[in-house]
C-alpha cells in the first residue's frame, strides 16, 4: 500500500467514524427495556452445567497462570493415562475392528457455513440435540426459544423449542396468554394444544423420538394469519419474533420431556412444495437429546 493509499484509507476511516457517531441513535426507545424485562420475567434460565464452574478470577495476579498451569498438568496426566489404557486394550485386541463414531460438530448458529449432509451436528439450544441432515438442508438458526433447521429453499423446517405457555388465541394474541398458564408436564401441553382455537388438532398418539417417549399431534391451521393481530400468528410465549405461521399450516408436533425440560419438536413441510416427508423423517430419526 502506497503512502497515498494509506492516507486515503485513514481519511475514509476518520470520516466513517464521525458519520457513525452522528448517525447512531443516542437512546433506545424508553419502552424497550420494559418489554425486555417483561419477556425475561416469563423466560426460564438454562440450568448451569454442574461440571462447568463459574469463573471469577481471584485477586492474585498469579492465580490465573497457576490455574492454567494446573489445568495443563491435569490434561497431560489424564491424557497419558488414557494413552496407556488405550494401548493396553489395543494389545488385547478388544478394539480391533471398532470404527469410532464421528464427533458431532457444533452447528452454525447463524446459518453460515451451510450444514453438510450426513455430518452429525449438535446444538445446545435449548437442550443439547444431536442430529444430521440430508442433502439440501443447509440452514440452522438458533434463538432464545430454541433451534430450527431448514432446507435450502426454506420450504420445510424441523424445529425444537421450550414452551412454557400458550397464547389464549394465537390469532388475537394481543388479548394475552392462557391464565392460569399451561402446567409443567407433557400431558398439560398436549391438552392445551388440543384446545388451540382456530386449529384442527388430531392425536395425541404415543411415539418415540431419540429413544424418548413423546406424544405426537398433527396441527392444521384453519385461518389466514393476515387477518390476525399485526398480521402475525403467535402460539407460544417464546415463539421467535415474527410469528412464523409457516410452522403451523400443517405440522407434526411432538412433545417430550428431556431430563426435566419439556421440548416441542415441530416438523413442517410448506404447502405446494416438493414432498419433504422423507427428509423430515430422516432428520427426526437422527435426533438425540441430552
Amino acid at each position, binding site marked *: 500500500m502506497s503512502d497515498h493509499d494509506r492516507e486515503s*484509507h485513514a481519511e*475514509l*476511516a476518520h*470520516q*466513517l*467514524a464521525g*458519520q*457513525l*457517531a*452522528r*448517525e*447512531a*441513535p*443516542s*437512546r*433506545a*426507545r424508553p419502552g*424497550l*427495556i420494559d*418489554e*425486555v*424485562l417483561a*419477556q*425475561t*420475567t416469563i*423466560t*426460564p*434460565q*438454562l*440450568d*448451569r*452445567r454442574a461440571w*462447568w464452574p*463459574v*469463573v*471469577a*478470577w*481471584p*485477586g*492474585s*495476579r498469579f492465580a490465573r497462570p497457576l490455574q492454567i498451569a494446573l489445568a495443563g498438568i491435569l490434561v497431560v496426566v489424564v491424557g497419558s493415562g488414557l494413552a496407556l489404557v488405550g494401548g493396553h486394550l489395543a494389545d488385547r485386541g478388544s478394539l480391533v475392528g471398532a470404527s469410532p463414531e464421528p464427533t458431532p460438530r457444533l452447528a452454525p*448458529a*447463524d*446459518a453460515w457455513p451451510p450444514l453438510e449432509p450426513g455430518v452429525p451436528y449438535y446444538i445446545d439450544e*435449548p437442550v443439547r440435540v444431536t442430529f444430521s441432515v440430508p442433502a439440501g438442508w443447509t440452514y440452522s*438458526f438458533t*434463538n*432464545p426459544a430454541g433451534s430450527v433447521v431448514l432446507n435450502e429453499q426454506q420450504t420445510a423446517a424441523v424445529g425444537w423449542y421450550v414452551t412454557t405457555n400458550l397464547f389464549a388465541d394465537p390469532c388475537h394474541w394481543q388479548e394475552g396468554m392462557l391464565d392460569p398458564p399451561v402446567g409443567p408436564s407433557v400431558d398439560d401441553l398436549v391438552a392445551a394444544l388440543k384446545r388451540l382455537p382456530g386449529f384442527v388438532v388430531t392425536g395425541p398418539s404415543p411415539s418415540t423420538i431419540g429413544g424418548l417417549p413423546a406424544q405426537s399431534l398433527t396441527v392444521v391451521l384453519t385461518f389466514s394469519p393476515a387477518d390476525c393481530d399485526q398480521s402475525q400468528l403467535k402460539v407460544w410465549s417464546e415463539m421467535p*419474533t*415474527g410469528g412464523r405461521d409457516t410452522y403451523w399450516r400443517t405440522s407434526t408436533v411432538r412433545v417430550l420431556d428431556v431430563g426435566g425440560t419439556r421440548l416441542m419438536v415441530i416438523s413442517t413441510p410448506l404447502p405446494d412444495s416438493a414432498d419433504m416427508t422423507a427428509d423430515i423423517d430422516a432428520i427426526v430419526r437422527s435426533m438425540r437429546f441430552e
Partner: protein
Amino acid sequence: MASGLPVTTRLSADAIARRGLVEQAMHGDHDAFGRLAAGAIDRMHAVAWLILRDQHDAEDAVQEALVRVWRELPRLRDCDRFDAWLRRLLVNACHDVGRRHRRHAAMRLVELQVEPAATDGWRAIEDRERLGRAFARLSIDQRTVLTLMHYVGLTGPEIAAAVGAPLGTVKSRLRYASAALRAALEADDRVALPA
C-alpha cells in the same frame, strides 16, 4: 508497566459492582439483570441500528439478544467476559434479524438509490449523506465489522470474538468492506453527476 498490585485493587469500583451484578444475574436475580440490561441497552441499540439501519429491526435484535443473555447467563463461564459475550449475542441477533428481513432491506436499498442528490449549497450535508448512503449499501457482514471497529472501537481480535470468525477472516472482511465502501461512494458520485 504493571503496577504489581493485585488485579482486584486495579479494577474500578464500577467494574467490581458490574461483576457483582453479572454474578447475581447468573444466579437468577432478575433485578440485577434489569440493571445490567438498562445500563447496556442504549449502546446495544445504537450498534444494532448501525448494522441493520432500521429502527424496528434494531429493537428486535436488542430484545432477542437480551432475552438470550438472560436465558444463557447461568452458562457464562467467565464473568469478566460478559461484555464480549454480550457483543457476540448482539451481533448474532442482528444477523438473524437481518436475514429474516432481507427482502425488506432490499426494498429500502432501492428507495435509497432513487433519492435525489443534494444541492451544491449543502455540500457538507451532502458529503455526510453520501457516506451514510454508501455505508447502508454494504452487506450486514461488512457493516458489522466496520461498526465494531469505527463506532465501538474494538481491535481486530475483539471483533473476531464478537463475530465468531478467525482474525484473518475479520481482517479480510475489513479490507473488503473498505473497498466496498469506496466502490459505493464512487457509484454514488456517478449517480450524482449531471447528465
